[in-house]
């Protein structure tokens, strides 16, 4: 079961219409779609392009430029490990290797049970208390391989909360 509702063309059109009046509306629209459906379906591109009077290439170009936007569905949770220098100084390279080994995936991949998508992030602004990671919208500091395992175990044993 996915943490996100199924997208439809009319829902995407509605998200696009709600924000199209804003100056520079494309990023807010893409955020709204991804927040709601977990990713930006390929089929959303022509809808957004037609509504904003832009080319599909322009819209696709923006989606592919930014690390945050994804064109495929994520797992139920997105887990980002900080790879930046302040975390490196306190052992994030070990944590990174541990996370990949424990989850059995590399960055930008999702575990076989569709539970966790692993991503890299360059700084979460928690630099005095690294290594840090972000699980959905929560940040965790001073993460060790052991506390990483505890966090992942908790995710997999808890039933999914309904929004």
């Amino acid at each position, binding site marked *: 079961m996915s943490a996100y509702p199924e997208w439809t063309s009319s829902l995407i059109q509605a998200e696009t219409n709600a924000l199209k009046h804003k*100056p*520079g*509306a*494309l*990023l*807010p629209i*893409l*955020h709204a779609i991804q927040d709601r459906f977990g990713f930006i379906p390929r089929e959303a591109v022509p809808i957004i392009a037609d509504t*904003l009077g832009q080319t599909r290439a*322009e819209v696709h*170009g*923006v989606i592919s*430029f*930014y*690390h*945050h*936007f994804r064109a495929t569905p994520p797992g139920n949770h997105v887990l980002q490990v900080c790879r*930046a*220098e*302040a*975390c*490196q*100084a*306190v052992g994030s390279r070990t944590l990174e290797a541990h996370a990949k080994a424990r989850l059995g995936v590399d960055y930008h991949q999702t575990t076989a049970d569709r539970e966790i998508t692993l991503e890299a*992030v*360059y*700084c*979460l*602004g*928690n*630099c*005095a*208390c*690294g290594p*840090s990671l*972000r699980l959905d*919208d*929560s*940040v*965790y*500091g*001073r993460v060790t391989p052991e506390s990483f395992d505890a966090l992942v175990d908790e995710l997999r044993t808890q039933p999914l909360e309904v929004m």
Partner: protein
Amino acid sequence: MSARIFIPRDTTALSLGADSVAQRLEHEAAKRGLEITLTRNGSRGMAWLEPLVEIETSRGRMAYGPVIPADIPSLLDAGLLEGRTEHPLSQGLTEAIPWLARQQRLTFARIGVTDPLSLDDYRAHDGFRGLEKALAETPQRLVDEVKDSGLRGRGGAAFPTGIKWQTVLDAPAEQKYIVCNADEGDSGTFADRLVMECDPYLLLEGMAIAGLAVGATQGYIYLRSEYPLAHRILEAAIARAEAAGYLGDNIADSGHAFHLEVRLGAGAYICGEETSLLESLEGKRGQVRFKPPLPAIEGFFGQPTVVNNVLSLAAVPYILAAGAEAYAHYGMGRSRGTLALQLAGNVKYGGLVELAFGTTLRELMESYGGGTLSGRPLRAVQVGGPLGAYLPESQWDLPLDYETFAADDAVVGHGGVVMFDDSVDMAEQARFSMEFCRVESCGKCTPCRIGSARGVEVIDRIRRNDNRDGNLVLLGELCETMEDGSLCAMGGMTPYPVQSALAHFPDDFLRQAEGEQT
């Protein structure tokens, strides 16, 4: 009488379990029939004491930290609610903790003291005094005040803020904009986040004053998507400020309009560069623009635009309230006022240290930082983010000042200080700098886009001892090309950490990379 307790709710405190501490405290207090009033304040910036629990007493607030949920029963047993000091986690009076007491907090005077979203708290702690003064002044007087304060862009470029404002004020246009650069992407920096999470009205006030000064009625905060909590707090603060008349069509009944909107970035480091940021804000790929034209002349959708860092805008309310002279009184040389330093990485007592320009790195890392967290010797420090040089011990006595650092091939940048102990492999760090540039380059100019990819390969060959001498020469030439030929600081400054690592830690480049055979 109900005891008033404070537990922070900024990202760092939460990342270390502040919510669980708060829940446990409420649970234990209820169980024992104790009456408490819990305020979720901002952080004092003492990251090493988070989660920090404070209790209000007649002598001032008493501090306990770092607290984990399991400490709550023993803290209550030891007289937490009376502010007693017997418990091992007791830190005494918060404001007497030397780490905090010795700072010169002008911009960060209020963080951790107040409930970030309480307008009453904000007003009770000198909030909106700058705006009130600004409403009685002409735009030119406001710009002059900022010029006289000596404030320079705190994002890293250190351009005089008042001169930027003057350019926008003098540019005739129907619509002008204030854009706050809150894309704090440098590793080792979190001062912008602290302002936004712990004292959001300060930023709103600074932006409203900037709007009055240059004649802009619309502002945008371009916030990185990596800061979900700052996003929620800013949205809430804007809604409350609008409802209270501090933002909107008629701010503080002055007849002046100022509207504010938060826009989220999408995980692109380059969007901290002001022209990329503007492209992104316009809904495009965040690619760097050619300059000129300057954003102050042709910025957001071609209109005159002030683009200032969070800390520059957050310094403005103090400057207006206390006067330019009071601010300029701090500092050294052409670096006036205070600098928000962020002690990060392998540091024992990390967090936010606001001090006048002129402190040395050694003073900062030793007497504030307390050395490394690991207890091993400190070996290198990277100041100013991923594009800043790695400094060896011979450079730790440099005073923190824009010009002094620049003269020594270093940068103050956004004030991030990332400490590394002697287990660091500086060749690996140099490789990462190139790798980061490869991942984050906007792709517009060749030296940056291609140079960084080749840079990773060349460093890999050096570390493999594959024609090491030849490749070291090649790396030097590549760095020179990137520095001279890149459009912006991304490619132009990536050589700083690389070349400083090479210059000061050459032995690390002679070691075999792990798992490699020569």
